[in-house]
């Protein structure tokens, strides 16, 4: 039982855990102590002085140590001569706090008056206007007029760019350091800081490119004034003009809760468009943060390249046709193919879409396969996270093992939470073949060679090294499994090996224990939960089929083997947003809707089922994936599926055993979260949104006999010949995907290739040199960077960057640019 402290605030008895500060304690009983610099997620600093209150403590007789009593027997309270800051003072037993006396109110008024001496009269043009803590608190506690002269206001640079994403208005800054502290304490990127002192104090960025942090957008949320604003929202709309549409981010398997702020726009011909994305509080998933990829990638849905017409191949050319004709053609082809129908689906689809395709393949007795570059989700359904899990509840004595994943690049919010856990005292074991950002926070850094993952896992669960002891002897063990330098075959085996280890050390089936796979798409786990697995003989299946049905996947661009197989397929039906490489090969192309245009549900890597909702009207002439599949299913004589996502989910939950206990209503349930955030609390935590849309539900584990992996062996990777290098697929946050390209992040797209300095020297390739990669019959030209973070003899290839490195490949590298001619990079 945690120790509790009793005190009195404004005459009300309060009982809170020891160690809490007075601001948070007052909040628990609904008493407002105004703050600017204090933030419940950051360490207190007491910089703004707005939270000054009168604090009294029971007087103690120095000689005897006994409490001094008044004449009536009550303890005598000694008040300090001056006011104290409530945000830096922890509560103590018997404390008496007065937060609304005349003295306190006068102090607040003066502090606000001082803050406003240099604050510009920008409220009418400021992006924060309407949701601004300074505005609100001045109205609540401030003085109606200022005794300072307008001319004497100190003026500073108004439009100061902190990089492509964030703009700083130095005049508006009230020097609370929330942004500096966030980047330092939470994001671990101390790239901004204070420069100068006093009136001249200003925020400056120390990195190149400016404000080089993948969490930079969060500083605009917690900034209590309009000093930090995002460049894509700048003057986009006033806070009160937008409608808030809750949803879930689909950029990675974390499943961060977000809110789309939408507004009708004259520039877009009166269409409702997304103006910005804000985080929505879910303390068990993303707390109140989202990464910049989640915040800035939404413009792709507005792209003019979007498909807005069904296409059918006639005379070897794709021509626009009506929906009726396209669906008729597709259904005829599927009908004709019958049993040989082969469906390829990906984790980009929602549960409803996947279920609809699964029903369709069942109807024609065809085959369905998950298209993914990672495998092993079937083991995650048995040893994954269980209900009641929450990474922020892991404490000292527990262990987090991160295996083969650069979490910072693959799932930023998980990186944040793992980092915080490590700082709380959780043992962090980071096993990787190259250097990653997590190395700094790990208790044990283990380096293995690419291709020797099996040995590394076995050692972790079987050997007696300190790291292995920390893993097997942990009170709670969470394992993150990535796909760094691994293909589908290797990751499937890796998941099996880790599952074996978890079973052996009985770290599964209880909260905060189990395997979290770092998938490449948002709903990959959902596919496994529905029993859709990757087919090991995918290429054979594709080349043998009479009708290949591809939804939400682009195998032709990513996997040359599958591309070859696709050329042999009888016909290809593709559902996608864009005319992808796969769609270009198709006989029927059906335009679908983006995540912000439709409803649905997804399952995160932590096995949390969450619903998302439509924010903007769908692009003309498009249909949601499940709607298309439903029509095809009906045409093939199948059952009529419900027309909306909610009813379809309900049907799915009835039919699919993994979802039996999780109703749609349960997904919408919320409960009070701590710290309190949201619209009525703007002076407290910033502009994050409270969660009234649903926190999601973690699925129960699949149990049963004979379901666990045994004696898994990892397949060997190719051995490069003497003049070849091992090309390994790795994930970078800002890749060449359409979503990143259409956003502000396009200038920060990661380099595609990287070499070890010794290899670069041997090849005479300088940083930025143009090289040609030869593998198989194909040749690709790309720029190469040199990095010592990776092992010798390897070539790291970023996924989604146009190179078909689907699994470890042996490639020959030819340098195009002579060393004398320096590359432009």
């Amino acid at each position, binding site marked *: 039982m945690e120790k509790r402290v009793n005190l009195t605030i404004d005459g009300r008895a309060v009982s809170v855990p020891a160690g809490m500060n007075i601001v948070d304690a007052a909040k628990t009983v609904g008493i407002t102590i105004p703050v600017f610099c204090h933030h419940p997620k950051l360490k207190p600093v007491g910089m703004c002085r707005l939270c000054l209150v009168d604090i009294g403590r029971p007087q103690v007789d120095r000689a005897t140590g006994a409490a001094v009593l008044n004449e009536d027997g009550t303890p005598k309270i000694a008040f300090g001569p001056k006011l104290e800051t409530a945000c830096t003072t922890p509560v103590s037993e018997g404390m008496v706090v007065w937060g609304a006396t005349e003295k306190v109110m006068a102090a607040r008024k003066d502090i606000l008056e001082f803050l406003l001496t240099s604050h510009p009269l920008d409220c009418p043009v400021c992006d924060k206007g309407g949701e601004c803590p300074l505005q609100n608190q001045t109205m609540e506690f401030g003085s109606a007029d200022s005794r300072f002269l307008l001319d004497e206001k100190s003026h500073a640079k108004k439009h100061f760019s902190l990089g492509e994403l964030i703009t700083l208005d130095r005049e508006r800054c009230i020097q609370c350091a929330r942004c500096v502290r966030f980047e330092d304490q939470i994001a671990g990127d101390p790239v901004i800081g204070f420069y100068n002192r006093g009136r001249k104090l200003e925020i400056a960025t120390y990195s190149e490119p400016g404000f080089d942090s993948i969490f930079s957008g969060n500083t605009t949320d917690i900034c209590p004034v309009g000093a930090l604003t995002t460049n894509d929202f700048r*003057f986009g709309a*006033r806070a009160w003009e937008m409608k808030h549409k809750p949803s879930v981010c689909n950029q990675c398997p974390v499943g961060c809760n977000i809110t789309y702020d939408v507004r009708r726009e004259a520039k877009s011909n009166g269409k409702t468009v997304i103006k910005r994305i804000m985080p929505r509080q879910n303390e068990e998933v993303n707390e109140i943060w989202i990464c910049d990829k989640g915040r800035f990638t939404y413009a792709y849905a507005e792209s003019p390249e979007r498909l807005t017409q069904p296409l059918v191949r006639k005379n070897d050319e794709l021509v626009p046709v009506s929906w009726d004709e396209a669906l008729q053609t597709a259904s005829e082809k599927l009908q004709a193919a019958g049993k040989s129908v082969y469906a390829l689906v990906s984790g980009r689809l929602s549960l409803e879409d996947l279920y609809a395709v699964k029903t369709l393949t069942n109807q024609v007795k065809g085959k369905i396969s998950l298209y993914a570059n990672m495998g092993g989700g079937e083991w995650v359904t048995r040893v994954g996270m269980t209900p009641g899990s929450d990474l922020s509840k892991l404490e000292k004595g527990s262990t987090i093992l991160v295996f083969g994943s650069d979490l910072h690049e693959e799932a930023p919010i998980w990186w944040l939470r793992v980092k915080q856990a490590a700082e709380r005292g959780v043992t962090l074991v980071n096993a990787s073949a190259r250097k990653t950002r997590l190395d700094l926070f790990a208790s044990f850094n283990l380096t293995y060679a690419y291709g020797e993952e099996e040995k590394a896992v076995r050692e972790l669960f079987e050997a007696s090294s300190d790291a292995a002891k920390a893993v097997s002897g942990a009170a709670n063990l969470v394992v993150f499994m990535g796909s760094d330098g691994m293909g589908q075959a290797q990751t499937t085996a890796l998941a099996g090996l880790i599952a074996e280890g978890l079973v052996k050390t009985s770290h599964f089936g209880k909260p905060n224990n189990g395997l979290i796979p770092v998938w490449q798409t948002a709903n990959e786990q959902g596919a496994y939960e529905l029993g859709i697995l990757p087919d090991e003989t995918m290429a054979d299946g594709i080349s043998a089929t009479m009708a290949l049905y591809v939804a939400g996947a682009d195998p032709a661009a990513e996997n040359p083997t599958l591309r070859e197989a696709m050329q042999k397929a009888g016909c290809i039906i593709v559902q996608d947003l864009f005319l992808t490489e796969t769609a270009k090969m198709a006989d029927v192309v059906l335009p679908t809707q983006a995540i912000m245009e439709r409803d649905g549900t997804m399952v995160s890597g932590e096995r949390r089922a969450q619903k998302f909702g439509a924010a903007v009207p769908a692009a003309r002439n498009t249909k949601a994936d499940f709607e298309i599949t439903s029509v095809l299913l009906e045409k093939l004589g199948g059952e009529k599926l419900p027309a909306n996502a909610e009813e379809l989910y309900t049907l799915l939950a009835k039919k699919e055993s993994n979802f039996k206990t999780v109703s749609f209503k349960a997904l919408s349930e919320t409960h009070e979260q701590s710290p309190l955030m949201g619209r009525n609390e703007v002076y407290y935590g910033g502009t994050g949104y409270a969660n009234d849309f649903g926190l999601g539900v973690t699925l129960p584990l699949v149990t049963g006999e004979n379901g666990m992996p045994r004696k898994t062996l990892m397949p060997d990777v190719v051995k490069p010949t003497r003049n070849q290098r091992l090309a390994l697929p790795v994930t970078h946050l800002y890749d060449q995907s359409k979503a990143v390209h259409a956003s502000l992040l396009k200038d920060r797209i990661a380099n595609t290739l990287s070499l070890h300095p010794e290899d670069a020297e041997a090849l005479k390739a300088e940083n930025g040199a143009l090289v040609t990669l030869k593998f198989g019959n194909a040749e690709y030209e790309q720029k190469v960077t040199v990095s010592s973070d990776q092992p010798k003899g390897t070539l790291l290839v970023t996924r989604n960057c146009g190179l078909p490195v689907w699994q470890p490949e042996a490639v020959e590298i030819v340098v195009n640019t002579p060393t004398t001619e320096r590359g432009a990079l």
Partner: protein
Amino acid sequence: MLRGMFTTLKALFEKPVTIQYPEQKRPVRVRYRGRHELKRYDNGLEKCIGCALCAAACPADAIFVEAAENTDDERYSPGERYASTYEINMLRCIFCGFCEDACPTEAIVLEHDYELAYTDRASAIFTKDKLIVKVPMGGSPTPQKTEPGLYTRSVPEMKDPVD
């Protein structure tokens, strides 16, 4: 009956109350609230900074504003922000004048034009080019190319309105 005829006869020689509208127009009161105008400064810059407070104050939701950022090469108004879209739906407007009260730069003023007739709903929506006044003598039209650092304030210093 004679008395009745006398009243008629008397009215014949009185000054008529009716006026020949539209050839003749009766002047309106100084504070009359007619059609809105968006004002300019003497140098031709627009007073409107696109803050949309008029739209927020409007009880009939008749005003729609969209803002964009000024640059020194293309400056519409002082400060950083200007209205890239400004529309008033005159069918919705109830001429209450709240927009005028809300305006921090005295940009929107309800002037004396009351001749508002339309043939369809679309023409009742007055866009920015209809609402904005002509460039005053000596001023130049917007967008202007201006010196950097000259127009940094959005909200000018103002006295309380006297009338």
